[in-house]
């Protein structure tokens, strides 16, 4: 028995890979579904903050990510767009990451088409600019000096969605979907604290713990953290909607559950093997 436990530590990594793959593939293939409990927390705060916005408001939605974090952030982009558009809130979007432009287009266009919202009237994608925090500060005094045209070269000044919007403080809220830098911290520093605009959004699970201090001080009104945050929002957005469109985060949470258990099992087995090896060494002395 001791030999088996000690040998565990020398197991081929490919066996670990196979177990890991199965822990994700099997629950997904079986379409295992688990209920998503929504408690008090940053996801609920985010939903409540958007819900409190009156229709006709305008929100800035910043797509600060790329395909590498798309499984976590794209469901948030879709769910947030659904919530905002259903409430007749206008969306002006941009991207601090180049690939965020195309991903944002994909999310907003699909939602807009399903809800009958018009590009340039109800939503627009301004595109990408370099500069991160610097461009945010410049937008604080004049958006059109940074974005004279949208991502596709259409003059921003002619768009109905931009009526009454000339600087950052004209927005009712700023939402950033952030995979790193520039992202949420840049918006909090350069827009939230400087121009006193409510900041919210979502981020990858990796960076979520770092943003809790902003939640504690009220510098952020809410935060969706990783796939769990996306699933929470998808669940809340679906409440009271007839035939809501299927999201991708919620079905993934069952696989996430199983995979977490498997990782915990790996850690426990690794420690048992380590302790057995340590005990044997101690005994040999």
């Amino acid at each position, binding site marked *: 028995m001791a030999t088996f436990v000690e040998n565990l*530590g020398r*197991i081929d990594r490919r066996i*670990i*890979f196979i*177990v*890991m*793959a199965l822990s*994700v593939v099997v629950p997904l293939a079986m379409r295992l579904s*688990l*209920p*998503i*409990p929504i*408690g*008090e927390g940053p996801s609920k705060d985010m939903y409540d903050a958007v819900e409190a916005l009156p229709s006709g408001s305008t929100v800035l939605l910043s797509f600060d990510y*790329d*395909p*590498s974090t*798309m*499984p976590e952030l794209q469901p948030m982009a879709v769910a947030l767009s659904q919530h905002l558009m259903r409430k007749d809130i206008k969306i002006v979007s941009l991207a601090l990451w180049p*690939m965020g432009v*195309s*991903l944002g287009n*994909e999310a907003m*266009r699909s939602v807009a088409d399903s809800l009958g919202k018009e590009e340039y009237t109800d939503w627009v994608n301004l595109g990408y*600019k*370099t*500069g991160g925090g*610097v*461009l945010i*500060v*410049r937008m604080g005094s*004049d958006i059109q*000096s*940074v974005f004279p045209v949208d*991502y*596709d070269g259409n003059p921003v000044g002619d768009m109905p969605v931009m009526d009454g919007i000339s600087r950052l403080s004209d927005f009712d809220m700023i939402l950033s979907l952030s995979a790193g830098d520039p992202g949420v911290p840049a918006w909090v520093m350069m827009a939230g604290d400087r121009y006193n605009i409510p900041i919210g959004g979502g981020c990858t699970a990796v960076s979520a*713990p*770092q943003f*809790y*201090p902003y*939640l*504690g001080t009220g510098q952020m009104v809410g935060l969706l953290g990783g796939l*769990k945050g996306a699933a929470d929002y998808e669940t809340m957005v679906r409440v009271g909607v007839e035939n809501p469109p299927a999201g991708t985060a919620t079905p993934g*949470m*069952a696989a*996430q*559950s*199983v*995979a*977490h*258990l*498997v*990782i*915990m099992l*790996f*850690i426990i*087995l*690794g*420690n048992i093997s*380590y302790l057995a090896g340590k005990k044997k060494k101690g005994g040999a002395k």
Partner: protein
Amino acid sequence: MRLVIPLMITFVAGMIMILQFFVPATQSMGESLQEWYMIVASAAIFLGAINLLNVHIHKIRFKAKNWKYSPVTIAGFAVMIITGLFLGIEPGRPFDFMFTQMMVPMGATMFSLLAFFVASAAFRAFRANNWRATLLLVSAFVVMLGRVPIGAMIWSKIPGISEWIMQVPNLAGQRAVMIGAAMGMVATSLRMIFGIERSYLGGAD
């Protein structure tokens, strides 16, 4: 001596950005600088692309290790440039098709490989060999369970405990790190603006 002009540019640019925060008269200067910043910073991306091409052309020329794959990089780059410049970037165009159907799955897959390596690392390296490491492990377990639906099914209080860990000890720890890093950043910024820190210019005097 050859660093005098760059150091002066750093000082003037830095001071304008600080002053425009407090002195309205410097606002327009600050705004011009911010607009210029975008243009100059975008050149860094071109520099990166030129460097990438240089490396791969060099690899092909000298038949360096794995040189046979270098034409793939160059071809991928060229196809995106040609389609983007001449056929447009809006949805439905070849540029957008290649982004959606090729770059998106490749980018997502590349980073999803990390799930396997994090599992392997957790098995081999996560050792509870003292009480603090055990505390870290317990905290990780509670958070991992509390963030998934199965946690609530095991014990209904787990999500609440997990959220408490996030909002109390995690917040305290992250805030300490945040304040410490901010002070470091402020000190470094001051050193740069006043020309004490010059390593970004190549370290020469």
